[in-house]
């Protein structure tokens, strides 16, 4: 049997401790648990592995995953992670800390969260950001709840059908249990202009599920005229170049921070960001870090505005969330520090170059038709396939690509990030030409 290195107890230690407590043996510590509930016999687990065996086991499991070149986005983007990020985020003072309750010895965590909040505000144009949430879709669901909480006695939220499917599904799930009426709309501006009874908020994507950069001229004015809030779901990486939620007049900005240097990791951990205009600050759910000073006038950071939160308000809290995705916020903060405004622009330009090149080459194969020929896009687009989608995908998987994700509408979706080289794009097209 493999030894377990993480228990420091010697037999002598155990004896000393039991004696101090005044019980006979370890099992006697559980005398307060009724006999019927004490587990008899062993547990149906595998035998213990040594560290070396574990390594071999996980490497073998990893080999069961195909290694593919990713040409799909749809809410998870294969952007490059600079080496600095894992090197710094692995520092165990960050990694093994808890939520920064003891602020005097948590200034590292508190300060990077303050920087994170500042960066999210810079990208979105909003005034206040929280310390992050689980992921983009849950942040969107919280935004829906926030719209309802900010507009007393209103209970309906209009949600664009062009949001990513997982965003709509999570919004609908949360709303279903909190009794919020969600209306999914194909034409948000028209529906708002017609007037929706009880309208508390509207949620739209900055870039939609087809990759199209949306034009929301006039939408915020109409939403506000109805006394409702406008929430915008954004790809934060793209916000370096596309109009920000603040520029569109939105009240709340949400989205997934994964595109800011966080690996795909089959769906998580990612990070949901959430920011709002000043007047809704008290309705913003989640942890928030603020700046203050100590008695000697030294700059200090603390968790603040906590009276909104579950440990004080219990059932009247703005949300039940009591953590954030702190370490992922650190990833994003380091990423944005390295990139700066120019680096983020560059990432968008490189992605856009690859995407537009692929778009053109795919149309030239004659196996696809354009769906939104006159609409602007950055790194993601959809096409209508003129060949069998299953065969298409099988061919791509066989050639080592994950591309042409089938959508509900019968389109196929592609995404190109700065990680994809021209040679890879050419190879993808070649694989399709052979079809």
């Amino acid at each position: 049997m493999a030894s377990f290195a993480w228990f420091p107890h010697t037999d002598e230690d155990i004896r000393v401790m039991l004696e101090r407590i005044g019980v006979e043996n370890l099992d006697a510590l559980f005398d307060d648990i009724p006999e019927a509930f004490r587990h008899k016999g062993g547990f149906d687990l595998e035998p213990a592995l040594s560290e070396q065996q574990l390594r071999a086991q996980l490497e073998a499991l990893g080999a069961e995953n195909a290694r593919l070149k990713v040409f799909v986005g749809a809410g998870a983007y294969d952007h490059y992670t600079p080496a600095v990020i894992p090197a710094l985020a692995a520092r165990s003072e960050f990694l093994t800390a808890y939520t920064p309750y003891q602020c005097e010895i948590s200034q590292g965590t508190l300060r990077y969260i303050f920087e994170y909040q500042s960066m999210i505000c810079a990208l979105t144009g909003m005034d206040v950001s929280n310390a992050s949430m689980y992921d983009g879709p849950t942040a969107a669901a919280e935004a829906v709840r926030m719209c309802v909480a900010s507009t007393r006695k209103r209970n309906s939220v209009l949600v664009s059908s062009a949001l990513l499917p997982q965003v709509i599904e999570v919004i609908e799930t949360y709303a279903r249990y909190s009794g919020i009426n969600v209306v999914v709309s194909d034409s948000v501006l028209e529906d708002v202009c017609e007037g929706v009874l009880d309208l508390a908020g509207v949620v739209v994507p900055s870039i939609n599920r087809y990759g199209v950069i949306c034009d929301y001229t006039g939408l915020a004015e109409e939403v506000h005229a109805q006394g409702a809030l406008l929430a915008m779901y954004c790809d934060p990486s793209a916000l370096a170049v596309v109009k920000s939620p603040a520029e569109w007049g939105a009240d709340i900005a949400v989205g997934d921070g994964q595109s800011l240097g966080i690996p795909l990791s089959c769906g998580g951990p990612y990070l949901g960001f959430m920011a709002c205009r000043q007047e809704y600050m008290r309705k913003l759910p989640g942890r928030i870090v603020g700046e203050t000073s100590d008695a000697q006038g030294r700059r200090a950071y603390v968790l603040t505005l906590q009276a909104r939160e579950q440990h004080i308000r219990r059932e009247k809290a703005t949300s039940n969330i009591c953590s954030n995705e702190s370490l992922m916020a650190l990833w994003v903060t380091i990423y944005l520090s390295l990139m700066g405004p120019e680096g983020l622009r560059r990432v968008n330009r490189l992605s856009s170059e690859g995407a537009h090149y692929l778009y053109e080459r795919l149309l030239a194969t004659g196996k696809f038709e354009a769906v939104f020929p006159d609409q602007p896009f950055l790194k993601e687009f959809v096409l209508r396939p003129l060949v069998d989608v299953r065969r298409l995908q099988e061919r791509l998987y066989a050639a080592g690509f994950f591309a042409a994700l089938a959508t509900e509408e019968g389109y196929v979706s592609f995404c190109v990030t700065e990680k994809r080289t021209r040679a890879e794009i050419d190879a993808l097209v070649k694989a399709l030409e052979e079809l």
Partner: protein
Amino acid sequence: MSNIKEGLRYSESHEWVWVDGKVAVIGVSDFAQAEMGDITYVDLPDEGDSLAAGDDFGALESVKASSELYSPVSGTVVAVNEALADQPEKVNEDPYGSWIIKVEMSDPSELDALLSPQAYAEIAK
């Protein structure tokens, strides 16, 4: 010993009421502000909100606590002390000078159920 101002009526949840014709002017007692400690925010209702006696109409917040405010009377909110939004410390400094809302009463007889300063002194200790 907290200060209990004469000439006011009090609720068991530590609000005071000063009656001005049909309007009830409502704030919180010295005892309540002292219990809360440094008040950091006063959550206020909107003008025009209608309240039943016992409804919560807002909250006082401190760094580590939140306390709901309950209306001692039924009626319509006709004024809100917006100054408290920027200066919540006024409630600590001058609880009886810092009214929070004014309510036009729909049933002034509800006042009879409130406590006199003497009766309130039994609770506020």
